[in-house]
């Protein structure tokens, strides 16, 4: 199946793929692809951002808990890109706990800063041994040291935002890392956890990251109140985004028929679109996208008609002053990807939008 997927990707990139098989040794797979020269400007900004951020993580030590060694190696590779050292891999929760217990009074250089657990290994045990262990360690140690206990991350291929929030608010994990792993995703998820990584004076305070994240991104703001539109627009424009404001779900729908150039959309609740608020607008947008995606897939329409994008899914965030649990569930059900709430301060903007805007 992997080869079949790869072939599709290579075909889409205008190339060819082939392999040579040596019995007893293995296979060598090679492909060609047609690539375009990138704009040097955008590369510099991104590179600067990564260089700046990697400094926060270089030299940290992590423990991976995974019963599949090749999968664990892939995780180790991704962490290495951030300069994070993985000395050991534990194959079960028990061995991970034993390891951490023996590591509980480490010198600075051997201290484990984070534990990454694959969902397969995590899944079955509802007694959450890691959590129990950390609680014990926290109680046994002095308060200053407890700050530096390892952070726990769950590695998962699929998890709903609701499940993620439940795990986080129960204190069982510090964050969930979605696979496939990528540099930007890792950075984003690690940064969501306060006090991880080294504290450098420069890194506390305003992240230049927001400028990189939002620059030249096309964002649509949908709100029927002028004050809200003005404030949201300014918050985005400050970081270089190109903002289009519309005052109704109807107007938004007009502009969001594929093909369009928007990178993301903020839709507020007070949309009098058939009296159903922003959920309804989102559902209509998703329906539009689904129609287009189906017609491309079935061959009825070619992706060229739609700017060569074969799968349309625009990130939509609910823009709101406060969102209760019931609202959150409705949002997810209607096809929204997340929410952004006031105040639109930097940390919030970053954590709400980074995963949509960091292009991979």
């Amino acid at each position, binding site marked *: 199946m992997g080869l079949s997927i790869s072939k599709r990707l290579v075909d889409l990139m205008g190339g060819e793929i082939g392999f040579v098989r040596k019995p007893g040794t293995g296979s060598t797979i090679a492909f060609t692809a047609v690539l375009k020269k990138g704009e040097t400007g955008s590369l510099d900004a991104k590179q600067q951002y990564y260089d700046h951020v990697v400094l926060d993580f270089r030299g940290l030590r992590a423990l991976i808990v995974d019963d599949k060694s090749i999968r664990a190696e892939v995780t180790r590779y991704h962490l290495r890109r951030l300069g994070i050292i993985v000395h050991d891999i534990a194959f079960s929760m028990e061995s991970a706990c034993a390891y951490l217990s023996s590591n509980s009074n480490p010198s600075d250089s051997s201290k484990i800063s984070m534990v990454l657990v694959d969902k397969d290994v995590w899944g079955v045990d509802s007694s959450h041994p890691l959590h129990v262990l950390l609680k014990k360690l926290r109680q046994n140690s002095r308060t200053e040291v407890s700050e530096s206990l390892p952070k726990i991350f769950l590695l998962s291929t699929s998890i709903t935002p609701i499940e993620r929030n439940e795990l986080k608010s129960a204190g069982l994990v510090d964050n969930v890392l979605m696979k496939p792993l990528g540099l930007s995703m890792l950075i984003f998820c690690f940064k969501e956890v306060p006090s991880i990584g080294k504290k450098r004076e420069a890194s506390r305070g305003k992240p230049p990251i927001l400028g990189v994240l939002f620059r030249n991104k096309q964002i649509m703001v949908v*709100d*029927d*109140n*002028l*004050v*809200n539109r*003005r*404030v*949201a627009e*300014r*918050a985005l424009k*400050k970081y270089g985004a190109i903002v289009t404001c519309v005052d109704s779900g109807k107007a938004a729908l007009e502009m969001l028929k594929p093909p369009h150039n928007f990178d993301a959309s903020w839709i*507020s*609740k*007070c949309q*009098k679109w058939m009296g159903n608020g922003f959920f309804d607008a989102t559902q209509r947008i998703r329906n539009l996208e689904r129609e287009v995606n189906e017609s491309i897939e079935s061959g009825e329409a070619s992706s060229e008609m739609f700017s060569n994008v074969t799968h349309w899914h625009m990130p939509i965030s609910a823009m709101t*002053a*406060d969102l209760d649990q019931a609202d959150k569930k409705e949002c997810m059900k209607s096809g929204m990807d997340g929410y952004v709430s*006031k*105040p*639109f*301060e930097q940390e919030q903007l970053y954590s709400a939008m980074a995963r949509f805007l960091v292009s991979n």
Partner: protein
Amino acid sequence: MDLVGQLQRQFVDYTTSLTREGFLDDQFKQLQKLQDESNPEFVVEVVSLFFEDSEKLLNDLASAFQQKIVDYKKVDAHVHQFKGSSSSIGAQRVKNVCVAFKTYCEARNFEGCSICLQSLEQEYHLVKSKLETLFKLEQQIMAAGGSVPEL
């Protein structure tokens, strides 16, 4: 302390008290952060929009309650707008009244709604005059040749 210094001190004290008394919250601080050389009048502009918008909403609300039969859906829509705009500029007390107001709307509780409407008018006029005082202080500082302190 010279005049500019005095005025700046007044400004800081006044803003602090407004936050402490719950009139303005973090979102107002964010508004101030959004203001810069390329948008030097942003806060005043947005707050003026808020005043215009609010006065219209209060009128709409008053007339909705003067009807023989109160259309609670309409009232709720107006209050929702007010809640959104007040939270956008950080007018916390106004926003809080809106939250309570919405609950009474959902319950179709006439008395509760009437009380909220009165409360809303009160809180709105309070925050309006406080903000106008704040802006006057800013103008005085700048007229005296100083710069408005960042908080």
